[in-house]
Structures are given as structure tokens and as C-alpha cells.
């Protein structure tokens, strides 16, 4: 799908998952054969679904799955905002914080203790390298950067994603609430 930009008219789309379960990306893949049709109109320039390792300078549509839970999530959301003309929050974790935000009821130190000490039987230790630091509070994407379109759902169905992208590509502003809701 990451074909080089032969066709400059194609809409450039980037996606990332922050603190989510990847379910929203799986729902995107559930578009099945419609992905082929989509590939005629869009080019995926950056995503966990393709090989590119860096986010290009200019992107038409950025899609974020997942809440902002650690410093890396925040940096990526900010980078997406800077480089994407339109930014979409895809799924309840990005839109509300959802399940990742359940940990906000506990102190961060207790959460880390629970995950890395209490529940580990062999050599419990705190990660110090290669793991971004957790932030005290999990927040939805729009609590950190401006978001242009919200698609609730856990995950939003392939139908919903198809409809929303179709409307955007046709130059219209979709109303996701016609098809989806919190917890859908």
C-alpha cells in the first residue's frame, strides 16, 4: 500500500496507534476488498500497517488510535498535529481515554508497582530503557492537540470507517454520530 507517490493527486494518509489495543487498525483492515478501492484514492504514507519509519512533513489526513498515556504518545500526537492538515481521533481510547484511562483512579506509582513488581514472580524490575515514561494522567487526544474529527466506537466498525473516509474523500464533512457512538 505504501506505493511511491507516483500519483500526486492521491490523498496522503498517515496513521498511528498510541495507547490502544490496535483494534481500531484491525477494524480498518476489516474493510477487506474495499481496501483495494481505497488504495486507488489514498496513499498510506506512514502507519503500523506499512514499512515507512518516519512521518512525512506533509500529510493530508492523520488518524490516531489510542489515548495519550506516555511521553512518546504525546510527542507523536503533537507531531501528527503539526504535519497533518486534518487530524482524526479514531475509536473510544483516542476520543474519551476509554479503558486505558481507567488507571487514572490510581496513583501512577501504584500502577507501576502492580504491573512490574506485585504481579511478577521472577526478577521483578522497573523498565529503565527503551520504554517511554508513563504520564500521571491518561488523556484523550483532543486534551493535548486540536482534533478535527471524532469517530467514537470500540472499535468503530469497518462500515463507519468506510463511510467517514468516503465522505472526506468526496469533500464532505461526515457526521460519525449517524453511524457510531461511545462503546459501539
Amino acid at each position: 500500500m505504501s506505493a511511491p507517490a507516483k500519483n500526486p493527486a492521491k490523498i496522503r494518509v498517515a496513521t498511528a496507534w498510541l495507547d490502544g489495543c490496535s483494534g481500531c487498525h484491525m477494524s480498518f483492515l476489516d474493510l477487506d476488498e474495499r481496501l483495494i478501492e481505497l488504495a486507488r484514492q489514498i496513499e498510506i504514507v506512514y502507519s503500523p500497517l506499512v514499512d515507512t519509519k518516519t512521518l512525512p512533513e506533509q500529510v493530508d489526513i492523520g488518524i490516531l488510535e489510542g489515548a495519550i498515556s506516555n511521553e512518546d504518545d504525546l510527542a507523536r500526537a503533537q507531531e501528527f498535529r503539526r504535519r497533518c492538515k486534518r487530524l482524526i481521533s479514531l475509536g473510544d481510547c483516542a476520543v474519551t481515554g476509554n479503558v486505558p484511562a481507567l488507571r487514572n483512579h490510581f496513583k501512577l506509582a501504584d500502577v507501576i508497582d502492580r504491573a512490574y513488581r506485585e504481579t511478577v514472580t521472577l526478577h521483578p524490575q522497573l523498565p529503565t530503557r527503551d520504554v517511554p515514561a508513563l504520564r500521571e494522567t491518561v488523556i484523550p487526544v483532543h486534551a493535548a492537540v486540536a482534533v478535527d474529527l471524532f469517530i467514537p466506537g470500540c472499535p468503530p466498525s469497518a462500515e463507519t470507517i468506510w463511510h467517514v473516509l468516503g465522505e472526506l474523500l468526496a469533500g464532505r464533512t461526515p457526521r460519525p454520530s449517524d453511524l457510531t457512538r461511545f462503546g459501539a
Partner: protein
Amino acid sequence: MPIPAPPTNVRVVTFQIDGRDYSAREDETIIEVARENGIPIPSLCYLEGLSTWGACRLCLVELAGSPRLVAACATQVAEGLQIYTDTPRLQRYRRTILELLFAERNHVCSVCVSNGHCELQALAQRYGLDHVRVPYRHVAYEVDASHEMFRVDHNRCILCTRCVRVCDEVEGAHTWDVMGRGSDCRVITDMNRPWGASDTCTSCGKCVQVCPTGALVKQGTSVGEMTKDLHFLPYITRRRHNR
């Protein structure tokens, strides 16, 4: 609910809703007339068959010539009123009220027993609420699972007091009441003792059935499994009325 024959001294008045003419008995409320005529006005605390509470403010409507918004569930119709139920201002306020409800306690629809069968969730979708603009409070509330059949999860409670009213007015047990102020406000059972230790609760389940959210549910329900049935209520109240 079909209203029993009017006492002779009740007048019939004419008025407009959204530019159309209607007439009704002067002791009917705006929301009753709207429901009878299929005009949608959102509500959470109002429930046909229970007394009026007027707390959620979702049913606010505009009256021509008045800067004040009024609660349709707590305002009677009157001769010549021009009522507007769906102006941009009302849509904005309703959306904001719903956002505040989502931000105040902890609504995680994807893992809620009432997912797909919740009045709050359905209203959010109907009013295009696709994100909450105010910060979430993220304060944990108690869950009381001491009753052998039911459970109360205060994280999902919107303080509509339907449970309080149905238990008092229909079941006659008055197990529920309200305690505390502001964000500490919550519904309690029997002088704030665990529900399971209640001497007054008859385990009739009426409170569970009328609760609009996933706050009152049956034990043993998992995500999305809790469906509610409100039909008993107009039935009981109509039978009583007719006596």
C-alpha cells in the same frame, strides 16, 4: 398515559409547539403534550408515572418572549404559549449538559453492562455528542454489590432519582434516598447502609428497571447484557388512577 376524564373545572387551552397549533388540558405539562404528539424532547429524570423532579435540565425549552428557559417536565401549558423545542441554543445546551454528565463520573461504555441499552449513551448519540470538551474528573466512586440480586455502581449514576421515586411512590418501600452535596452527592439505601443489609428493600427490582444508566443493574450481568423494561410503570399507575 391516557389521562382519565378531566375534573369539570379544568380548562382546555390552545398554544403552539414549534409553530404548530395544539390544545390540551391546562394541567398537563409541556413534556406530556409533546410525548402525546410525538415531539421529541430529551429527558433523563422525567419518567411517566413518577412525580416530577426537574433536575437534569435536558428537557429545557424556549418560550417566545421570555429570556428564561423552562423545564418542559415541570411547566404546564397555558393559553397562547409559543413553545420551541429544538432551537440551536437548546441543542447547544443539551449537548453541554450531556458532556458534563460524561465528565463528572466514570462512563466507559465499551465495558459497561448497559452498553447499547443506556438512555444516556443513546441521547449522546442522538445529539451528535462525539467527544467531551471539558476535562474528565477521573474520581473513583463506590460500587455496592452487597445485595444478592442487584448492584449499584455510583460511577454510572447521574442522580436522576428515578430509583428514589419509584421505590417510594410505587413500591412504597422508600429504601433509596439522596445524601451529600455537589460531587459528593449520591443515592443511598437505608440511612447509608449497604444495600444487602437493607431492612426495607423488598427486592422487587423496580429501581433497577427504571434506572436510565448502568448504575443499577442485576448481579451476574456482563458487558452489554443489562436490558431494562419500563413497561410495568405506566401500567401500575394507570390501574391505580382508575380505582
